């Protein structure tokens, strides 16, 4: 039984020299600092021996404080309710670390991001291309370093080339089909390049992060603790509340703030309401990608009452603005509770009808079964989360594994399927919607009385906090490191779609072009979550001019022949 003591003693035993420091600020958190040369054996121990799951990696610039960069890897021991943070100190004179991607394939994007934003290179990374910063960003400017101002404007570059890889051996004969940078089906900015032979996909590549706007840099520089929740909830237009709640969870852990029980319950109720609306939205989108607009219209019609409900509770349909570190701003009065129960009753009936009709639909099943397969082994290696993981038989659910807010006191069952295809994920999302209805009813019945907001004093510096919650798409994790003068030093967001997008190439292998939109749609992608969008735009949006023929004929200049 791997408990915190077990892990601690295991680490001390195996890495007596490499382990420089350890602390256990809470029962479910372990922070280690290791020598960077030994990071690979430590990673191997955690990932392969203890079967931990990589949550995220964080790169922090502590050079003004102690001359080092900090690169941390966060692991989760799901069945033991333990989050482990492994930190390595990197001197600013030699900003490299050994790469762990060969041990944990899911660390691929994390290490590329740390290089793009902080400038710490991962030696031995199999695919060191640019990931996060835009194509015209200069090579030697690393935005998250403290010496770069938050409103830095790089010089204009005329000829840009997205960092897409060359075709490998079995893709050389294939046609290249580029879908993007404006992705037509999802109507988002994402650039997929498919290598196709006829209708069959033999390989794929992805260039994303068009919506990356650098909110983490804003946090370090101009925002304070009470302003960040409002930015966090704008990271995503569907799961925004989870982000702001997760951030507040991280700050409350770092500062040792005890949130009143009523606020915890209100937060959990809103999170489940968000899950209901998100899954119904996804069901509609899945229908839309298949050309089945009727499912889109009907499921969104069924979803609309929950949007009206939250508008009455919080003052807005989506950006609830409820969270502040320490509690919530508005109360869930008894009238609102009654209204919630009535709305949910009607919605549950209609959702049952729709789901029953959809499950029995033979043509729908024909399009979704055996499409977009992700084997359980791949799911574990790439560290996917949420319905994508549960559809492949990996039993992880943050509400059960790292219970937070009201969830330790609630009874529910996680949906789990073994099918590994899109049909399995559809069934999981349907089941989760009904579980959410039940959870909301449980919570309203036992809603504790009391205050809504705890007293929050000064927040001590150099504390670390980790918040993890189950967003509709999977686990969403936030990391905060507090700094001097009541200001955060580093905020790192790892949205749920981040590992999922890394799994998409595996899902696309051997599938047809017609399946492509629904496969990407089945992970319920939230590109803005992954790329961390802000609404405050101080610069005008630059329009990129690609000189490729595909797709952008519309934006080409009108040439000769004007009549």
């Amino acid at each position, binding site marked *: 039984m791997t408990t915190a003591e077990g892990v601690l003693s295991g680490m001390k035993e195996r890495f007596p020299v490499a382990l420089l420091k350890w602390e256990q600020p809470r029962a479910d958190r372990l922070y280690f600092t290791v020598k960077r040369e030994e990071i690979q054996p430590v990673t191997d121990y955690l990932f392969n021996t203890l079967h931990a799951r990589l949550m995220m990696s964080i790169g922090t610039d502590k050079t003004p404080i102690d001359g080092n960069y900090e690169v941390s890897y966060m692991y989760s021991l799901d069945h033991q309710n333990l989050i482990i943070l492994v930190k390595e100190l990197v001197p600013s004179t030699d900003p490299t670390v050994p790469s762990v991607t060969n041990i944990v394939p899911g660390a691929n994007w994390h290490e590329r991001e740390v290089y793009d934003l902080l400038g710490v290179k991962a030696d031995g990374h199999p695919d060191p291309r640019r990931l996060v910063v835009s194509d015209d960003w200069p090579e030697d400017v690393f935005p998250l370093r403290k010496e770069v101002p938050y409103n830095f404007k790089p010089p204009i570059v005329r000829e840009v080339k997205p960092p897409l890889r060359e075709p490998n051996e079995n893709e050389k004969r294939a046609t290249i089909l*580029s879908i993007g940078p404006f992705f*037509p089906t999802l109507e988002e900015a994402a650039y997929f390049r498919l290598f196709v032979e006829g*209708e069959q996909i033999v390989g794929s590549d992805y260039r994303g992060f068009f919506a990356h706007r650098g909110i983490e840099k804003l946090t370090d520089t101009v925002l304070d603790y009470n302003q960040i929740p409002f930015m966090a909830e704008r990271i995503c237009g569907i799961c925004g509340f989870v982000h702001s709640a997760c951030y507040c969870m991280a700050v409350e852990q770092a500062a040792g703030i005890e949130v009143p029980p009523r606020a915890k319950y209100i937060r959990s109720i809103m999170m489940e309401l968000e899950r209901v609306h998100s899954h119904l939205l996804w069901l509609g989108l899945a229908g839309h990608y298949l050309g089945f607009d009727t499912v889109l*219209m009907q499921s969104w*019609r069924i979803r609309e009452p929950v949007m009206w409900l939250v508008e009455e509770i919080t003052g807005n349909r989506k950006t609830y603005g409820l969270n502040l570190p320490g509690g919530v701003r508005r109360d869930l009065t008894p009238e609102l509770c009654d209204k919630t129960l009535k709305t949910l009753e009607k919605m549950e009936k209609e959702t049952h009808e729709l789901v029953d009709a959809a499950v029995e639909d033979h*043509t729908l099943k024909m*399009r979704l079964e055996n499409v977009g397969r992700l084997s359980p082994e791949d799911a574990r290696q790439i560290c996917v989360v949420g319905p994508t993981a549960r559809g492949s038989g990996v039993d992880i659910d943050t509400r059960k594994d790292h219970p937070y807010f009201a969830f330790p006191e609630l009874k529910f069952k996680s949906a789990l399927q073994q099918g590994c295809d899109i049909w399995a994920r559809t069934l999981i999302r349907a089941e989760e919607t009904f579980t959410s209805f039940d959870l909301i009813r449980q919570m309203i019945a036992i809603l504790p009385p009391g205050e809504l907001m705890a007293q929050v004093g000064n927040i001590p510096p150099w504390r670390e906090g980790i918040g993890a919650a189950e967003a509709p798409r999977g686990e969403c994790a936030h990391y905060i490191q507090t700094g001097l003068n009541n200001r955060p030093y580093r905020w790192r967001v790892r949205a749920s779609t981040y590992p999922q997008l890394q799994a998409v190439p595996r899902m696309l292998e051997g599938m*047809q072009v*017609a399946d492509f939109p629904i496969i990407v749609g089945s992970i319920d992608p939230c590109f803005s979550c992954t790329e961390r969008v802000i609404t405050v735009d101080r610069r005008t949006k630059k329009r990129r001019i690609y000189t490729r023929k595909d797709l952008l004929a*519309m934006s080409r200049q009108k040439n000769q022949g004007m009549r």
Partner: protein
Amino acid sequence: MTSVAVGVFNIVFVLLAAPLFDGVMRQVKARIHSRRGPSILQTYFDLGKLMVKEDQLAVNNFIFSVTPIICLGSVLLAALFVPMGGVVPLGFAGDTLVLVYVLTMGPICLCLGGMASGSPYAYVGVNREIMMLMVVEPVMAISLIASAIKAHSLMLADCIRQPLTGAPSFSLAICAVAFFLALQSVLAKVPFDLPEAEQEIMEGPLIEYSGRKLAMLKWSFYCKQIVLLTLFMEWFVPWPAVGSLPLRIVLTLVKVLAGAVLVEVIAQVFPRLKIAQSMRYFVSVIAVALTGLMLAVMGL
């Protein structure tokens, strides 16, 4: 004289009323979607808007510029062949086969235009269009030939009179079913609308068209809808038979409207099928049509 009048009526009617029928279909779609939907006249406004929008001139190619006109022209030519109220405007011996060829000109034009545009999305769409054409055209051809065999003549006028005068026949019923199933694909409606106007590959062959050319292409699609539905109704569902010509025309239009509604309802309760699945489906429909043909040869 009546045939000339009916011919003129056909062309004028098809051109002017096609957007109206499309508007009705959009209202049916909206009703199934539980929303109010656009007004029935909306398609006129959309086409009008496209006509005055500037042409992006994205592709400087003769074939690209000429295919919309040929497409519209071929559909109007087919309208001249299609019987209306039992009268075939341009009837001559062997015109059944000519009708089949003229109807195929539309998709071929679309393929040519798509390939001339040079976009990879258009290539994928054209690919699918040709594959669908290979399995759907035989169904239509076989059904029409079976009916011609029953009428012992290749003249359209004789073929459409046959069900009214002769005894009820199994083969025609089976062929009618097969033709109706093929209609869903020829009209480019879900579940078989892979090639044309598909959001996945951004409208496929139509992707580079804009302005007036796009308006003409879209208009030709709407006209094709009416032409084919009229053909189906006149040929396989000629009942009830009434005396005067204007009354027969009105009856046909009512049947065409009912057919349009049915096609749209089917389109809204199915997801889009992939190309392999569609082809498999239509191979079995060809088998059904062949059964009808055999029964027709045997005299049933």
